[in-house]
């Protein structure tokens, strides 16, 4: 299986502020990868590098088998939904799509019309004065109408009401079902996508601190509760993070079966309970605390 995204030691600074400090990760073609990271951790910067809008200071970047070269050619095969969609305010929705069609050789106008219809977006809707939901729908149509191989979605449902969120996510899942698409999605509400994503990258401290498959999370993530013999030396193992605890019991979240086994075998504790951890809970903990997974 080929690699859709390959990042090796990618660094990027803005002035003195180093945002990305050596990001290394890869996504296989056809996979759906969730990108977890707090605000300001560099998710948008990473997206811009993948979109060939920014050049990394160092490191290797490969997208769909090509290295970004500043030409913008890569974007013909990428569908991008930014966190805050912006369009030219002198156009309406229909005109936005007409203009975009001129730049994408594979633009599928009937598909665009079909998407507009499903999302109930009126082509006459003026961009100036459009609601957040309308802009989000338009952004989705713009991203999908040229049938890209790779989707980069930066908080596509951020700030949307429940109905619009459901509509947009419904379209997203529809794309997944069509197969062959690689999707990298940053979403605070990762639990919405827990059922569809294959892998989770945790971006923290300017690096991908954890890259874990959802299947392994589903199979192995658990909450381990144990009685500690010595509270001054609480065991620490890769792939597990301590949870708030109340003596005499201590708790950990173990993200893999191996981590849970290592914890149990670390000595100095007696495991009382191992309870499966829901995937969304596991993701929240990964984001909050990180783990060397």
């Amino acid at each position, binding site marked *: 299986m080929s690699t859709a995204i390959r990042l090796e030691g990618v660094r990027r600074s803005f002035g003195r502020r180093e945002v990305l400090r050596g990001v290394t990760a890869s996504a296989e073609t056809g996979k759906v990868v969730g990108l977890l990271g707090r605000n300001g951790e560099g998710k948008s910067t990473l997206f811009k590098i993948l979109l060939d809008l*920014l050049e990394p*200071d160092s490191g290797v970047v490969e997208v769909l088998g090509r290295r970004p070269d*500043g*030409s*913008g050619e890569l974007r013909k095969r990428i569908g991008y939904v*930014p966190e805050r969609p912006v*369009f030219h305010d002198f156009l309406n929705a229909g005109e936005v799509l007409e203009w975009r069609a001129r730049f994408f050789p594979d633009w599928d106008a009937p598909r665009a019309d079909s998407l507009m219809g499903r999302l109930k977006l009126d082509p006459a809707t003026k961009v100036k004065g459009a609601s957040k939901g309308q802009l989000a729908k338009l952004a989705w149509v713009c991203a999908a109408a040229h049938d890209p191989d790779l989707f980069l979605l930066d908080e596509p449902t951020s700030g949307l009401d429940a109905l619009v969120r459901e509509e947009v996510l419904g379209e997203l899942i529809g794309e997944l079902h069509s197969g062959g698409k690689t999707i990298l999605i940053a979403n605070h509400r990762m639990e919405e996508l827990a059922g569809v994503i294959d892998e989770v990258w945790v971006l923290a401290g300017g690096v991908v601190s954890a890259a874990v498959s959802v299947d392994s999370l589903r199979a192995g993530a658990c909450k381990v509760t144990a009685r500690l013999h010595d509270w001054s030396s609480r065991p620490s193992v890769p792939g597990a993070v301590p949870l708030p605890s109340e003596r005499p019991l201590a708790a950990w979240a173990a993200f893999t079966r191996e981590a849970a086994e290592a914890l149990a075998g670390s000595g100095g504790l007696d495991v009382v309970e191992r309870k499966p951890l829901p995937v969304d809970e596991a993701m929240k903990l990964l984001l909050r605390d990180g783990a060397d997974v």
Partner: protein
Amino acid sequence: MSENALSLSGAEALPAARPLLGRALALFGRAPRSYAVLEARRNLLLYAGWPVVILGSLPLAAAVAMSAEYPLIQGVAAALLGWAVAGLPLTALLFGAVAGAGLRGASEEAEASLPLSPRTRAFGALASAAGALAASTALVAGLILMAAPDAGSLLRAMSEVGSNTWNRTHWEVMFSVLTTLYCTPLALSWLLLVSFGVSLVSAHAVLGGVAALFAGAAALLPVLAGLMLQMSTEGKAEFLFPAAACTSALLAGALAAVAGAAAPALRAGRWGAARALLLALLPLAGSLAAWPALYRSRDRALAATESVVSAWDRSRGGVSRHLVPAIRRSLGGRLVMERPEGDLVLLAGWTPTVADLVWGKRLSEVHQVFWDSKGMLWVEAWHPGTQGAMPSTEIYVGRGDGPLRRYLTLPYQMRFTADDGRACVDPEGWAYDSRTYVYLDPDKPPILKRQ
């Protein structure tokens, strides 16, 4: 069909140049053209509204002229002159600044996902702004041609920028300024380019426009000075074409630097913005080529005004004129002698600077030049006074093999002359009687009293 120029069969013959050729031709593909149209659409209010502003200024100027009891046509002429000399350069600044800054900010976000390179976006925006500027320029030129009493004379004026321009009609002046200066790849393109580049890098239209105003003015200073010099002197200084050639030759490179390299430099990390800014200011380097041309023009203007004066031979009394050795007098009272060996010796005066010539500084005049019986060369020169001071008449003396020595500042009422082979001064200023003359000895300080 691929937009890529590598599909063109002609490129097959130039394997080494294919990547560059491909990139250059790709700038004229469908996507860049579409982007230029999009940019024009984005700035439609400005680009389409500006000609309306130009047209609207004419009745306004006519109304002002009529209210001041001037003929209506003079108001229109003044407005068109204003557009030709100042309005269009400011238009270039404005359009460049708006186009450059407009590529950043909201526009950048809106177009982030479009498969366009920064170079293509920059060229598209520039093309759009340049087209709008050309339209405004054509409108002003057309209005001048329509309003002028004799359109044919204006067209002739295009080829005759040079001598006596200030004596021409104001229609001819404005049209020749407009077409020979601003419509060449000099002022307008420069201002558009520098304004665009600085605004693009700074993402600030006002900053870009103001920076371009000062930077462009500095770069165009030699061109403007040369043009005024050309119009001020009787002989053609022929400045404009060497300067135009120099700066035009660099314009293509500057264009590539600004749009081709400055825009992509903004993608880069460290020093990217600094590099982009340096590239944006690169067009100013073309002005360096204009300065030598300006000084050559100055020298040509001086040479054109040189005239041979007779160095009178007063050695035996009486008056006898000889042209040996040849003495040349030019602007500024510069007096040079051409020796038999062919070289020139500066006898008196100084070489006017460009500023002296352009701003019409009152220059010295040589009144008399003669040889006395001892083979000494005497020169009487009038100098304008410095600010607040009176003009003065200076007497110089020397052997003619080098710079002359200032011998005497002649009091106002006295007259300098020669008598019986000797230089002398008439203290009364009106007598022609040698009994009242005071004779001058070049080897002794002058004494201006009869002894």
